[in-house]
């Protein structure tokens, strides 16, 4: 049996009235939502957005050497790298392409890269009507770097978020190179 107090509670809808009081009080507070396209939330540190190939400040070209570690590590296998050899037996990256639609943004490619040549920018608004827009060629990836990682942002990127936290990604000393053959020539 219900007690008299509980009975009165049900009769006068006390619980519902308390809910109504809560919603009414919220009517006079500020909204917790943002007006998204107008008010954007800044990306959190280490945000994994659209890919970019790091442009070397000294040479003005990509840092990538075409070792294919990122492509080997990529869980969704969406990185395609085509390399060739020039007269000096140096490896040239002819094509470096990422199918962004298949990417799962795990960031393994950035982790795998021994040269710090690929990065994930904080840019995430790149919807489009065609699939071609999501097929990133080397030129587009480099321009992504110029667009979204210019200045301080790009300089601090690898130091802040990725291990080993490195100041400079030079060629590792034990890295296999064609130096001997070059010298023999």
């Amino acid at each position, binding site marked *: 049996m219900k007690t008299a107090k509980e009975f009165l509670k049900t009769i006068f809808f006390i619980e519902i009235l308390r809910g109504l009081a809560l*919603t009414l009080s919220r009517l006079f507070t500020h909204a917790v939502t943002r007006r998204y396209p107008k008010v954007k939330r800044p990306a959190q540190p280490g945000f994994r957005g659209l890919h970019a190939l790091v442009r070397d400040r000294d040479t003005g070209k990509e840092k990538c050497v075409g070792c294919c570690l990122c492509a080997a590590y990529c869980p969704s296998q969406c990185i395609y790298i085509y390399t060739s050899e020039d007269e000096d037996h140096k490896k040239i990256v002819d094509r470096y392409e990422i199918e962004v639609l298949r990417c799962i943004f795990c960031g393994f490619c950035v982790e795998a890269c021994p040269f710090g040549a690929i990065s994930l920018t904080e840019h995430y608004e790149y919807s489009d009507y065609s699939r071609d827009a999501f097929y990133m060629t080397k030129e587009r990836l480099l321009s992504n770097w110029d667009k979204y990682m210019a200045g301080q942002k790009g300089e601090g990127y690898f130091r802040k978020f990725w291990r080993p936290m490195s100041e400079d990604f030079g060629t590792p000393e034990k890295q296999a190179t064609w130096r001997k053959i070059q010298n023999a020539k």
Partner: protein
Amino acid sequence: MLIMSSICAICFLGGWTIPQFITNTLPFLLKVPGILWFLVKVYAFMFFYYWVRATLPRYRYDQLMAIGWKLLIPLALVNILITGLVKIMV
């Protein structure tokens, strides 16, 4: 919602009129057209509509049935009984 609120305003809040005790104290309010009072009442009901819908977005059906059958109908019957008794006694 508009129609339901209008019916409610007419049935329960006196439609386009305002209570006597208000007009007695503030006689100039009689000059305000009746449609304005009516609209105020309708919008008050519509606000209540939105208010309840914002508070209880999906009232569960069995709870709704429980309120209707176990609470509101018995209360209405008791109300009829008490009103009748009062009418007889007084």
